[in-house]
């Protein structure tokens, strides 16, 4: 679709620009300001230049060690949940009923976890996993597994991962389902005439058609899991020890717990920069995919 060049369109965009600038640019400027300074309380600030950034990227210091450790944990977490949620989401999407009222029922049930406040997601799993009052914890302990997410690192990790799978696999499934629905019936008929196996149909027809939605799903899941805060915070509080302390949890500890403004600000900027880079990849991929798609589907 060809758009007309019209600079007056800026007037239409201005309100959005102002609102987002007020809530994004102003705070970000404060962060940049803090990141160069040190504070000893009483609103006294001292110039620290790039000191915090050096410390942040040096694993031998306290700050750097904590940051890099939480970053490592966070990346590992993101990779694990992607490795589980993407295949599981595809399988669930392929298992959707074909038609009738069950489609709507499945869609609604699938979407339910997505609409639960994040702290309540945490609460649900906090309760569900407790050995004394939660069904999951009770059953696991009853069949002889020594499961306790409060004291055992591995149990805490498993709980946080299962919780995320519970919370977000539906998103992947719903996106894939949307991709699958756009495949014309004729493709399947052609495959049937060719005598293609179930696996061949999946590889040659369904997977290529899901490419775009899968990309969106992977990137969205990566971003959101990389920013995760509330759910693990409610369930494990970052513990036991620091074993489930992700970047956001570490940042909030430093910023609002210790009120170490300089350190927190430097961490924020590096964190934001990583997000920005991933975001740029996301944007490029999406707009490119959009351009490829447009000639086929017209203006819709």
């Amino acid at each position, binding site marked *: 679709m060809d758009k007309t060049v019209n600079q007056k369109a800026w007037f239409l965009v201005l*309100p*959005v620009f102002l609102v987002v600038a007020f809530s994004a640019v102003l705070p970000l400027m404060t962060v940049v300001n803090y990141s160069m300074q040190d504070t000893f309380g009483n609103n006294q600030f001292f110039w620290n230049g790039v000191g915090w950034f050096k410390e942040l990227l040096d694993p031998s210091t306290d700050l750097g060690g904590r940051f890099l450790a939480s970053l490592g944990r966070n990346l590992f977490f993101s990779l694990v949940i992607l490795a589980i949620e993407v295949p599981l989401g595809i399988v669930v999407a392929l*298992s959707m009923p074909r038609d009738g009222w069950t489609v709507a029922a499945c869609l609604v049930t699938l979407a339910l976890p997505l609409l639960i*406040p994040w702290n309540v997601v945490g609460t649900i799993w906090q309760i569900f996993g407790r050995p004394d009052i939660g069904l999951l914890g009770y059953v696991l302990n009853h069949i002889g597994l020594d499961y306790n997410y409060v004291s055992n690192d591995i149990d805490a990790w498993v709980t946080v991962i299962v919780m995320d799978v519970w919370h977000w696999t539906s998103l992947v499934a719903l996106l894939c389902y949307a991709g699958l629905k756009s495949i014309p019936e004729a493709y399947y008929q052609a495959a049937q005439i060719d005598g293609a196996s179930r696996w061949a149909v999946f590889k040659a027809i369904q997977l290529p058609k899901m490419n775009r939605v899968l990309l969106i799903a992977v990137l969205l899941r990566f971003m959101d899991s990389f*920013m995760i805060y509330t759910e693990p915070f409610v369930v494990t509080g970052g513990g036991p020890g620091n074993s489930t302390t992700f970047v956001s949890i570490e940042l909030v500890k430093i910023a609002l717990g210790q009120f170490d403004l300089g350190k927190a600000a430097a961490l924020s900027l590096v964190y934001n920069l990583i997000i920005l880079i991933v*975001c740029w990849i996301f944007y490029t991929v999406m707009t490119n995919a959009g351009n490829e798609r447009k000639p086929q589907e017209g*203006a819709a």
Partner: protein
Amino acid sequence: MHSIPGRRLIMGLFLIFLLLPIYWLVNMSFKTNGEIISTMTLWPHAPTLQHYRRIFTDESWYSGYINSLEYVVINTIISISVALPAAYAFSRYRFLGDKHLFFWLLSNRMAPAAVYALPFFNLYSAIGLFDTPWAVALAHCIFNVPLAVWILEGFVSGVPREIDETAFLDGYSFPRFFIRILVPLIASGIGVAAFFCFMFSWVELLLARTLTSVNAKPIAAVMTRTVSAAGMDWGLLAAAGVLTIIPGALVIWFVRNYIARGFALGRL
């Protein structure tokens, strides 16, 4: 659409996996604390409404819901009203910096709330909005305005340009065209965008909790109060949790065909 063998079983198992933890929460909200702690029962043997009664009669509890709804509604209204003209501009015109602006909006949708918690606290304290619903509503704009722009842009692009041109030929002024013709045409899109603004503002806790202390405390923050010297009040916590799920569960039926689109920022 062709499905895989054993799909009913897979779907059934997955739905059970999704519903079981929610069922457990609901189950617990109808139990007395005595029953919760002393025995493991799969359904409430002595069902009670005491936790719900407590929430609906104790002001510190139900005001949490009202506070949350307040900032969520303000945020939805702000987000949609500023996003509508912008979505139209992005959909119809090319202008200086449009692509960069679109990307900048997306990058804000992706920004971690933890980064903004502290600066927001300072900013809203400085302008005297701290502990009001406006602070949270404005703070949530950082991810909801971009979301609304992205979703609405998709819907506006679905409206043929000929409609704009005909309206202008018929002598409609721009504001009149916008309100009388465009808005009704994309009404379902506005509904979807509003739903997602509502949802994302409703589920967010970190910013909402950081920007309020007493008067505008959201329900999510009130829920942390169930920890007391006498131990956890599990039944009350469960009941409060169940009540936060209800707004989403009520409206989800109406947007069921747009869920994927909304979560994918309108790019489907």
